[in-house]
């Protein structure tokens, strides 16, 4: 048996399938003469660009050694003065409703409360699968996400590639996305889901559009995106009808009109420097939910320099947005969804404690489907049948397994969330939201603690 190390992307497929665990992938011992400044990858990238003259592309999240604030926050637990709650004995609630909450109650003439809540998204746990388009990921990957979302009572997101006809039946567990390319957007599509998401930006590539090459626009994908076979699917960097917050407000209300105010509107933005002000604007735009995507969020393809250098961490963005909206007294206008590398139940708990209503996960979901983070999605040759449209590769992902693994993952997280909540003496996720006293920082400086709105451990 021979292997060509230059072609190996370290997807670990062979390692995973070998029944005797006889294979392992090792780093090639052929390395460049690197130093602290000029490291292997940096040098190679220069060679690559010198060869091609092109923009470097990469995929999945920012791999650079930037701080991961989740790992610098620790969670509280009850001891003595109040009791932890045993999730095996007591109900432990994780249900959340996302959407705007009115300022005041209203009553009818006989004094009964009127349900004046605008449309909400109901989730059995505060996690949703975030946007990944059909095209960037496979039919079977979408099928897995949709089926799992339905079984779990949560939501998955179509991404900007439209909604495949087979998946309309999962509508109540679907967020349909309206992105700058407007692929596959028409009235039935808008009405098909539980909510509509306007994608203004993405954590992995803030300020950048997207480009799915024509050769991938075939068959179902072309039909679902509603563009001719073989034509490039180009998502412009901006929405060309949104050049200001007023324009966004118009789109929000256009979509609400189109769906007769029955669907909450989510506005998804990348976490960038003045995210708090941006969020405040969106909260006043009529949007029901703001999704903030941090700079470690994944992608099927992004220019490397953008992915690695643009945007800010979700933890800081979330904390400052939550604080700003509360300071302005408009936190109840919107729900907040945090995404951009939520890796575990602990990250979810920390995000909720910082102030999120729910989290978006995508990379973790793909890992559940088999992804080994080889970060070569852009090649379209995903060995795990996820980020590919090649039939023989797609086949490798059986949605029976995929959906089951997603359900397993989410169920496991739910158990962990409940356990952590129980430890804090909290038996409902509402009581965790924004409960920053439950967090303490370690190894953070004053400024970071201030932005996160938490005390240092020991305080």
């Amino acid at each position, binding site marked *: 048996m021979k292997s060509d190390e230059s072609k190996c992307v370290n997807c670990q497929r062979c390692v995973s399938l070998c029944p005797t665990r006889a294979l392992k992938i090792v780093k090639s011992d052929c390395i460049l003469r690197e130093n602290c400044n000029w490291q292997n990858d940096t040098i190679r990238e220069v060679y690559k660009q010198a060869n091609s003259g092109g923009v470097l592309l990469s995929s999945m999240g920012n791999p650079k050694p930037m701080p991961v604030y989740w790992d610098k926050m620790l969670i509280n637990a009850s001891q003595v003065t109040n009791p932890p709650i045993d999730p095996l004995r007591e109900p432990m609630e994780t249900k959340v409703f996302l959407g705007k909450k009115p300022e005041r109650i209203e009553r009818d003439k006989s004094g009964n409360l009127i349900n004046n809540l605008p449309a909400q998204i109901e989730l059995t746990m505060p996690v949703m699968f975030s946007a990944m388009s059909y095209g960037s990921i496979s039919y079977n990957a979408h099928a897995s996400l949709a089926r799992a979302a339905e079984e779990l009572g949560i939501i998955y997101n179509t991404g900007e590639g439209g909604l495949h006809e087979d998946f309309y039946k999962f509508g109540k567990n679907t967020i349909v996305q309206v992105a700058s390319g407007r692929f596959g957007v028409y009235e039935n599509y808008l009405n098909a889901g539980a909510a509509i998401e306007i994608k203004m930006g993405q954590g992995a590539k803030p300020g950048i559009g997207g480009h799915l090459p024509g050769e991938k626009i075939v068959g179902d994908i072309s039909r679902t995106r509603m563009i001719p076979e073989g034509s490039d699917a180009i998502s412009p960097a901006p929405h060309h009808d949104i050049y200001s917050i007023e324009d966004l407000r118009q789109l929000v209300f256009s979509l609400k009109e189109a769906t007769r105010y029955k669907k909450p509107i989510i506005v998804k933005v990348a976490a960038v420097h003045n995210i708090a002000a941006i969020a405040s604007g969106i909260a006043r735009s009529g949007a029901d939910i703001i999704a903030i995507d941090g700079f470690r969020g994944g992608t099927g393809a992004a220019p490397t320099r953008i992915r690695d250098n643009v945007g800010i961490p979700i933890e800081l963005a979330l904390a400052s947005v939550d604080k700003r909206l509360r300071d302005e007294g408009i936190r109840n206008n919107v729900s907040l969804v945090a995404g951009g590398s939520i890796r575990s139940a602990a990250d979810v708990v920390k995000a909720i404690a910082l102030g999120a209503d729910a989290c978006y996960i995508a990379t973790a979901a793909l890992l559940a489907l088999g992804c080994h983070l080889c970060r070569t999605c852009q090649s379209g040759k995903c060995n795990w049948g996820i980020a590919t449209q090649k039939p023989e590769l797609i086949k490798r992902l059986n949605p029976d397994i995929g959906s089951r693994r997603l359900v397993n993952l989410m169920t496991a997280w739910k158990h962990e969330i409940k356990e952590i909540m129980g430890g804090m003496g*909290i038996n409902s996720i509402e009581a965790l939201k924004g409960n920053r006293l439950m967090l303490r920082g370690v190894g953070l400086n004053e400024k970071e603690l201030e932005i996160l709105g938490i005390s240092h451990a020991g305080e």
Partner: protein
Amino acid sequence: MELEGKIRIPSGCAIAAVISREGNPIPGNLISEAMRPMHDRSNGLGGGFAGYGIYPAYKDFYALHIFFDSRSTRKDCEAFIKEHFEIVKAEIIPTEKNRAITDEPIIWRYFVSPLKSTLADLQLDEKEFVVRTVVKINSEMKGAYVFSSGKNMGTFKAVGYPEDIGEYYRLGEYRGYSWTAHGRYPTNTPGWWGGAHPFTLLDYSVVHNGEISSYDANRRFIEMFGYKCTLQTDTEVITYIMDYLLRRQRLSLEEAANVVAAPFWSTIEKNRNIPERDKLIYLRTMFSSLLITGPFSIVLGFEGGLMALNDRLKLRSLVVGEKDDRVFMASEEAAIRTMEPNAENIWAPAGGEPVIVTLGEGVEN
């Protein structure tokens, strides 16, 4: 060590309350004595009482009870109050020296009424203006602390054991149709008079036993509506929540109870009464950040009644008993038996189920 407000201090506690449904006067020493058998539930670092109907002569005026750390603070504060209020009476709250009570501040009460001109200027209703004034004094005026601000009611609190505090404030000289009491067991405090309970805002007073785990979620939400949780205590935030739900959102007591101690979703879903179920879903969704989790038993005092409420898991003790026109509530039955040895119908209310007692119809308060 830092005072309340600088740091959040958890504590265990004893609570007790009594009300006459017919509005008959009850002397304050009754409730003070009730705290004696629950001595061990406190540790001498705080206690207090709230009495309703105790100032019939001044029932149309807000009774501000204020601690001052010095004469000059009092002067400044009085000047501030005079700017916006008519003060019909100002006096030192009578006390009796007690060995167990030391380090006392200067304690005054003022019967006041907001100036109509000020209210008109600010376009505020009277109560809201009083609330803002109290919040302003407490958060901005160092050394002054308003610890009672309702009409025809008053709070009396100090550092010490509750039964000593009752004697110190000479509670036997007051008559009220209802009383609540609190004995505190803070785990980490030098003891500060202002930090003692009951906590009150306008005529709402709360005595609370427990340590709520939802504190910061509740605090950060309620602070959006102009409240400032200066003490960082559960009792304070519960009081504000009650004020927000009852006075500002105009929810009924039952509805407010369904917000703070909301039934579990599983219980709600099983409710066959559809309008009732929808109402519960609505309240939980609408006010999700006001759900209070963690152990608590509280007695909320208000003009004309009392409401006792346990957390939905009933993680703290709370018993209720009756005799004739009186209803008794306490952490322990012993406290009820002290107030009324022949108390009847003693029961422990289920978690999340409020016990609401109001003055009977036609009874003046």
